[in-house]
């Protein structure tokens, strides 16, 4: 997606207020918004030559009213008989239009359908499958999701949540009759926030690490004063139950790949004992990818944690009950997101759940395994002092790298890795699954993905190299490595593999070129290129090359195979 994505809004109602909110929102990415002609949803989706598509939007957001887009639903609202099959057939027809239009876009967002609370249908009987509006709406949304979830690049967004958040005044008859705007601004605000969060996630901007305080945040009380036995976690108090729910919510985020860490002013042994021994503690020390439990400045501790986990500060969220600590971290580390935090612990679970900064662009098995992978990394590090040199330590890891071509089985993960990786990413190219598949179809382009394993566990698909060939030379287009496996010379093994592949090809290129494209976040990639075996150009420090007649050496501690 381009730096300022172009968004096309397609709706059967006046959606100007949403366009204004997205355009005026100063958070990244800034978007340029256009609106398709009012009320011409199907025509816009079908007619790729219409003026709406002239701006070549990156993404479109389609938000319709159920009684307008689905004629059978309008008949149902008018208490006329409608067969379920007919209703579902019209939903599927609409879905086909969306799928066809999605071919012109990187991403197509579609809102679920909702009706105002006063459209009560059959009242208490409204959830009956025969004639009930509520039941029909559930069926329609379910059918829409079922058809669209199979399509890469189409994302169904839950409009009913935006409406619920805004309560009774979500639908505005006054705005509707005066301007054909069905919702109050607050609903559009929710939609804009979620859409922007999704765009950030798709561009690799979702936050990846929560650093939490302990005393009066993860648990109630100061452990150094009251002892772990007397901390408020669980039990039968409202506050204790809320702390358990807060920890459960953190654990749920961890289960889908958000890392947890601790920054606490405490004695480490005392705090860890509390984590291990308190019977109602949901989170144990094994749930944390790292911690800094000491009396040092928390900002310095957070920076050091991020470095240890190979994450940029823009990936970090800091949660602390103490406003002074929050203020200090905000001031010292402006890239770290420090949310305002409620005073009452009863509000902690909802405050955490309301954050959109962790919204994923997609979810893969690697995401689900991430927390475990970082725990393995902690074990790896703790093992390193046991051996003498770095080389010996690397050798002890029994590192295995498996290369594989792009396939239907790994397309989603490769795309996700390409779009999420910021630090070890040579060109920071962002592509949708469809675009990546199309790119690889060209005979001159090749892409390999790399899985990394060692004696501590499987880090999964964590590397990508893609190459394009023209005029006797090959150029690296993408060189991507997850921060989870940086620092083990996997990058060199990947380059060894690619050079070997090029040397063994029917028309081997004379030269392999690499051009580093700087961003605010990918300095680690330049560091790697500079210390790699590649030859740095004297004319341009961002240009590197390798003569393919020579073999690029594979690190001795890496066992490399091709799947």
């Amino acid at each position: 997606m381009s730096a300022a994505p172009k968004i096309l809004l397609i709706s059967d109602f006046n959606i100007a207020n949403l366009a204004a909110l997205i355009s005026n929102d100063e958070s990244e990415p800034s978007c340029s918004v256009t609106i398709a002609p009012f009320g011409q949803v199907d025509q816009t989706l079908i007619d790729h030559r219409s003026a709406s598509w002239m701006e070549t939007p990156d993404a479109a957001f389609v938000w319709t009213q159920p009684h307008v887009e689905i004629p059978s639903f309008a008949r149902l609202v008018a208490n006329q008989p409608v067969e379920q099959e007919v209703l579902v057939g019209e939903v599927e027809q609409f879905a086909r239009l969306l799928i066809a239009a999605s071919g012109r876009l990187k991403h197509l967002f579609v809102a679920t359908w909702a009706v105002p609370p006063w459209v009560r249908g059959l009242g208490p009987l409204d959830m009956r499958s025969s004639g009930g509006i509520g039941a029909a709406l559930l069926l329609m949304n379910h059918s829409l999701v079922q058809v669209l979830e199979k399509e890469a690049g189409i994302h169904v967004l839950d409009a009913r949540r935006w409406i619920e958040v805004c309560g009774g005044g979500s639908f505005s008859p006054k705005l509707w009759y005066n301007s054909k705007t069905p919702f109050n601004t607050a609903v559009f605000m929710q939609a804009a926030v979620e859409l922007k969060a999704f765009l950030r996630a798709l561009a690799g901007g979702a936050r990846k690490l929560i650093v939490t305080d302990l005393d009066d945040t993860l648990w109630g009380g100061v452990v150094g004063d009251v002892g772990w036995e007397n901390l408020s976690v669980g039990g039968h108090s409202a506050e204790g139950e809320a702390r358990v729910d807060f920890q459960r919510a953190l654990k749920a985020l961890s289960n889908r790949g958000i890392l947890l860490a601790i920054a606490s002013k405490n004695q480490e042994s005392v705090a860890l004992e509390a984590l291990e021994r308190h019977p109602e503690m949901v989170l144990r020390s094994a749930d944390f990818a790292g911690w800094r439990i000491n009396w040092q400045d928390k900002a310095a501790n957070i920076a050091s944690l991020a470095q240890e986990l190979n994450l940029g500060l823009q990936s970090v969220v800091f949660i602390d009950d103490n406003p002074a600590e929050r203020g200090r971290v905000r001031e010292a580390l402006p890239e770290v997101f420090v949310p305002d935090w409620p005073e009452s612990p009863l509000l902690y679970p909802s405050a955490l759940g309301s954050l959109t900064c962790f919204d994923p662009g997609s979810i893969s098995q690697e995401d689900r395994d991430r927390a475990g992978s970082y725990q393995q990394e902690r074990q790896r590090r703790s093992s390193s002092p046991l051996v003498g040199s770095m080389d010996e330590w690397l050798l002890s890891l029994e590192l295995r790298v498996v290369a594989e071509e792009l396939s239907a089985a790994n397309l989603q993960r490769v795309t996700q890795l390409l779009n999420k990786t910021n630090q070890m990413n040579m060109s920071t190219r962002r592509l949708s699954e469809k675009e990546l598949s199309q790119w690889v179809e060209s005979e001159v382009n090749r892409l390999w993905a790399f899985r990394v394993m060692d004696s501590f566990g499987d880090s999964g698909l964590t590397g990508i190299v893609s190459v394009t060939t023209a005029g006797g030379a090959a150029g690296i287009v993408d060189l991507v490595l997850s921060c989870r496996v940086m620092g083990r010379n996997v990058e060199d093994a990947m380059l060894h593999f690619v050079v070997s592949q090029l040397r063994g090809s029917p028309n081997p290129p004379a030269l392999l070129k690499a051009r580093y494209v700087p961003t605010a976040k990918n300095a680690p990639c330049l560091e790697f290129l500079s210390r790699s075996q590649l030859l740095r150009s004297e004319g341009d420090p961002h240009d590197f090359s390798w003569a393919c007649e020579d073999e690029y050496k594979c690190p001795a501690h890496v066992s490399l195979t091709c799947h």
Partner: protein
Amino acid sequence: MQTTHQITEIVFEAIDEVNQLLPRDRRIPKSEDAMLFGPSGLLDSMGVVNLSVAVEEKVEKKFGVSVSLIGDEAMGEEVFPMESVQSLIGYLAKSIKKD
């Protein structure tokens, strides 16, 4: 006097809401002198609808009075209530007093 002060607060709150929908350089100042609609006004027709609905809802909540700022009665006024912040506050004060 107290009512006028409360009305002014309501109008300024509504301006804050509507300003979220406007580019930074076209936002309405919270001043009685601010022109809203017309040749020198800051709002287009959609902006007028947004502001009028926001004000109407707040007035109803605060005073229990239903006003229509862009209905036929308001349109028939010598000065359109949505012309400026001053005319808006004046029209609201008159409507609330009448009710």
